[in-house]
């Protein structure tokens, strides 16, 4: 405020010299000159939307976070396993998946903007209670599985840092529970996000490990098919960890939360595509880095997080274990908090129950119980002694892959419902790619399950 140059409020206003009143010296921003009601006025109050780089930063957000959240414990385990076991051979799956992933994520974002509602809400409203219950069970199984894998990840990360998982996992769970329930989670979230930046070491490692680039290109552009059950198992795992049901739910509800209305949706679709491409480049670099360090020296099995960490050795040398541990801890704590929270949110919303962390315990009984139960189950299962960590992590991703087609069918039916999405309904191309993804995933799952069945029957 300008310095008082006259005795305001001490003398009657009449007595004050008009000229002595301070004329504002502050420079003010240039306005927008508009012709309105027959005269030209300079409107400085207009909030102009940001342009240039700022505009992109405003758009990029939910999609980038949602898709990057896919690179959690299960993701890292699956990509590392794929790289170690089959070298560069599975990269072509990731390339196809980038298109599918982008299209599916964009569909979910669009569904969120067009309806302002979450996926389970829409399933409840459109298909009734029975299907909603079915979807809830699917989501609970899929997300419950991923939650377990996050706590396994916390344990593995802390063991790399030299702390026993029997201490680290319960403590980590308690920390997550406390932060979310008592509302200070938002502040901690940024620290966790910073910790995950460690994984930017992967793209660097992929280059520094000097992979055979012609082999990488071959793996990327020439699809190979193998009757090997392990190969198909990993393909389903890659599908499940990339196009995960929970990322779709997360993407949709974050668009709703961001408050994107249908008429402003247009530029937002870029966010989903950029997120998908970015996240998959990251995944591919994990495969390449692992293949170039482990596969080439003949280590084809990743038994523990310590093995996976070796992929970072070309960049950071002996610090690989610690750095990998820090990154993994950040990623798993982040996902370990978001997953149970998002699941409890979505489920209580579908049943019209009071929800949200701002409610007191009595009103949000179901919400809180669900959130707590998911964490408790996650901890208990993660602490089973002698659990084969890597196999479990990959197994959960395979489970996600198996459940994925069901969720995809719901999404496809909803996004093509003209009453719901109006002008934002799927284009033909959207539908072709989405149905193609559905067919691809379903057949991979069928082939895998069929193979397992034949295996049990002793035919193969």
């Amino acid at each position, binding site marked *: *405020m*300008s310095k008082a140059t006259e005795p*305001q*409020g*001490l*003398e*009657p*206003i*009449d007595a*004050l010299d*008009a*000229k002595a*009143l*301070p*004329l*504002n010296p*502050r420079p*003010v*921003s240039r*306005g*927008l000159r*508009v*012709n*309105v*009601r027959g005269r030209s*006025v*300079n*409107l*400085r*109050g*207009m*909030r102009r939307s940001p342009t240039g780089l700022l505009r992109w930063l405003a758009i990029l957000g939910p999609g980038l976070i949602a898709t990057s959240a896919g690179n959690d414990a299960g993701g890292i385990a699956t990509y590392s396993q794929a790289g170690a076991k089959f070298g560069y051979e599975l990269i072509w799956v990731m390339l196809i998946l980038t298109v599918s992933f982008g299209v599916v994520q964009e569909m979910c974002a669009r569904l969120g903007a067009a*309806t*302002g*509602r979450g996926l389970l*809400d829409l399933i*409840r*409203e459109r298909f*009734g*209670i*029975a299907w*909603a*219950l079915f979807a809830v069970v699917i989501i609970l199984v899929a997300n419950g599985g991923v939650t377990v894998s996050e706590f396994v990840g916390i344990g593995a990360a802390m063991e790399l840092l030299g702390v026993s998982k029997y201490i680290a996992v319960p403590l980590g769970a308690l920390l997550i529970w406390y932060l979310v329930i008592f509302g200070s989670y938002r502040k901690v979230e940024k620290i966790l996000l910073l910790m995950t930046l460690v994984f930017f070491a992967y793209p660097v490692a992929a280059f520094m490990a000097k992979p055979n680039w012609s082999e990488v290109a071959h793996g990327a552009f020439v699809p190979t098919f193998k009757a090997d059950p392990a190969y198909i198992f990993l393909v389903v795992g890659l599908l499940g960890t990339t196009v995960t049901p929970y990322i779709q739910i997360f993407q949709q509800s974050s668009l*709703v939360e961001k*408050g994107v*209305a249908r*008429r402003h949706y247009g530029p937002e679709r870029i966010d989903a595509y950029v997120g998908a491409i970015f996240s998959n480049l990251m995944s591919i670099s994990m495969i390449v880095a692992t293949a170039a360090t482990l596969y080439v020296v003949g280590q084809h099995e990743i038994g523990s997080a310590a093995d996976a960490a070796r992929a970072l050795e070309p960049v950071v040398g002996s610090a690989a274990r610690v750095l990998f541990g820090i990154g993994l801890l950040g990623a798993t704590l982040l996902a370990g908090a978001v997953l149970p929270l998002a699941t409890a949110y979505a489920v209580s919303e*579908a*049943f*019209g*129950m*009071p929800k949200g962390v701002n409610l007191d315990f009595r009103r949000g009984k179901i919400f809180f119980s669900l959130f707590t139960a998911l964490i408790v189950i996650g901890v208990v299962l993660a602490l089973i002694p002698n659990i084969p960590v890597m196999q479990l992590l990959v197994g959960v991703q395979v489970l996600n892959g198996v459940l994925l087609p069901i969720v995809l069918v719901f999404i496809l039916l909803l996004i093509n419902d003209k009453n719901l999405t109006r002008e934002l309904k799927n284009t033909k191309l959207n539908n072709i790619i989405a149905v193609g993804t559905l067919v691809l995933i379903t057949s991979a799952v069928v082939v895998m399950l069929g193979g397992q069945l034949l295996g049990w029957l002793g035919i193969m």
Partner: protein
Amino acid sequence: MVMLSQLLRFKLKDENDEQAPLSDLSVDLFEGEHPPVTGLYLNHSTKQKRSLPWSEVKSIDWSTRTIRVADLKAAQQETTDSMRKVVLLADGVMDALVLDLQNRRATRANDLQLEEEDDKLVLSAADIGSNAILRRITAGLYRRVTKSTLYDWKYIEYLRGDPGAVKSEAGKHLRISRLPPGEVARLADFLPYLHAAELITLLADPKAADTLEMMSPERQLQVFEELDEEQALRLLALIAPDIATDLLARLQPATMRSYLERLPPKQAERIIELLRYPEYTVGGIMTNEVVYVRGELTVIEARETLREPLKNPDFIYLVYVVDNEKERILRGVISMRDLLTAPDETKLEEIMDRYVITLQPLDSAAASARRVLDSHMAALPVVNKDKRLLGVVTVDAAVAEVAPRSWSEQAPRIFS
């Protein structure tokens, strides 16, 4: 008394013993507190839905679960267009978001209760309990109804999630209109934006405008953009100019211009005036819908003169005394209390407070807001260098400016 989940397992039988399963019921939501069933729907597939009016029903046989009708052949083919106009219980209301007005929250109707009321079947309650879900998925094996989860339909508002659906019925919904606008706004902040917009279209314009004013800024914009232009314009004319300005300022310039061109001249002028100030200045947080009066009037003359000007503005607690209405040179201020209690023949000049603290329109908004709060006045006037009265910064606007965002959303608006 029957639950919809049970009724949907009834069959229709006519006098020629023809049979058909009942698939849905339509109701007239706007008819009374417990909407009557208006029609019966026969077929499951949407393509060839057929309906009978309720007047065709002869009797309901509860023991054999049969609804006797005159003639099933009289059923009308329904088209997609005709279906859009009716509200169906199973397809529409059940599972949809409903507002439980008693608890001021949004919930979902898990089942619906119907009651016979002289020859009619009316929608009497919504069941939001979990055993309603159990009833529905066990196909009639489980039948318990608990009274405690039944909510009287009298206090339930059904939303379709489509702001365009109820245009012609605006203002007819009495249930939601009984709540004060602040509570409606709070409810709307927690709904999907299409439902919130629909809620606004259900309200009569003055109430809708008040409700829109009290929504969070993001929600305001989302809802405003979903309204049809005519209604948007009507509401824009009614809401306080400072809030209307903040709303218009966030639209595309071309859209803003077209609204400004079509608004009533007075409101348009006020908004254009406010739009000239950047949001971080006093001008950006002030309102210019102020009550002012000439100082040479007596108290009784002032009361007479102010009868009209007092009707619209939100902020009326302080009346500003000016030289003449055209130039509005600020001379003093007088409170509404003084205006009502002072002797009739006293001149305003004699009782007004001349020691006025004023704000400058281009001063910093935050610093000036603190000054308003420190002064403990309901508002401080804003004047230009010629002491012309431009507007006031009310204590509400000051709180909104100073408080952290999460607070200002909770803080009730008292004056504006």
